[in-house]
């Protein structure tokens, strides 16, 4: 291995066997294309990248059945850096080699006018089991029209782990008919944190 310093009037480039590694100038250090700074474990520290990252939203209104935990259909993908979100299963799966701490967020908007929505729950499933959930409990007072639930959490995920969002509505017999509604308001997104 031959390390070479190639200074100019304004910058110095460090090469390995004739290939640029990085350049230092008055503004800082610029890594050459494809070059990284890694820790002892081989994790890439620079350049930073909060990926995998994904964002998907409801494609069209989805009617929910009363007292039934129902998977939300996020079949409108906005971006997906690692092709890790499957719109056919509405599932995000951690790609191989991409385990770590993930920030996951979801928001559900419930719309249309049933008169007695007493309880609305959003579940974040990890590997087909409840990982986190949030809910609005209106007790016996009910809620007639729109309602919404938001959830943000950090999860330590391994390659192959998969995440899904489920919704639940509970009310009297007329609770059926509530919908997940409005694409921009019913979303599922996340990204791996830089660690």
């Amino acid at each position, binding site marked *: 291995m031959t390390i070479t310093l190639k200074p100019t009037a304004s910058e110095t480039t460090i090469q390995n066997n004739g290939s640029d590694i990085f350049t230092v100038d008055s503004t800082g250090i610029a890594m050459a294309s494809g070059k990284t700074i890694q820790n002892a474990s081989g994790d890439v520290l620079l350049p930073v990248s909060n990926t995998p990252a994904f964002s998907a939203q409801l494609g069209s209104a989805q009617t929910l059945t009363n*007292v039934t935990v129902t998977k939300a259909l996020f079949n409108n993908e906005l971006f997906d850096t690692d092709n890790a979100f499957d719109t056919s299963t509405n599932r995000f799966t951690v790609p191989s080699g991409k385990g770590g701490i993930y920030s996951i967020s979801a928001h559900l908007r419930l719309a249309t006018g049933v008169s007695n929505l*007493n309880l609305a729950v959003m579940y974040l499933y990890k590997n087909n089991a409840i990982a986190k959930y949030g809910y609005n409990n209106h007790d016996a007072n009910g809620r007639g029209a729109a309602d919404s639930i938001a959830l943000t959490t950090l999860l330590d995920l391994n390659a192959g782990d998969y995440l899904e969002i489920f919704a639940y509505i509970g*009310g009297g017999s007329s609770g059926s008919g509530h919908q997940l509604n409005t694409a921009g308001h019913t979303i599922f997104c996340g990204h791996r944190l830089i660690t």
Partner: protein
Amino acid sequence: MSLYEKIIALYPELTTEDFCPLEGTIVLQDDSDGKGAFIREWNHPTLAKPTDEELA
């Protein structure tokens, strides 16, 4: 008729509270895959889980 309605027809004594995921003992789930709802959990202390024939 939804799965919930079929179960209520079999066991009229059940209420929506029994299906509440926070406090109930029965969980119905629909994976939105076209196969319909199914009983994910049945932990009711006295009532037996309905058979497929009873729910058909």
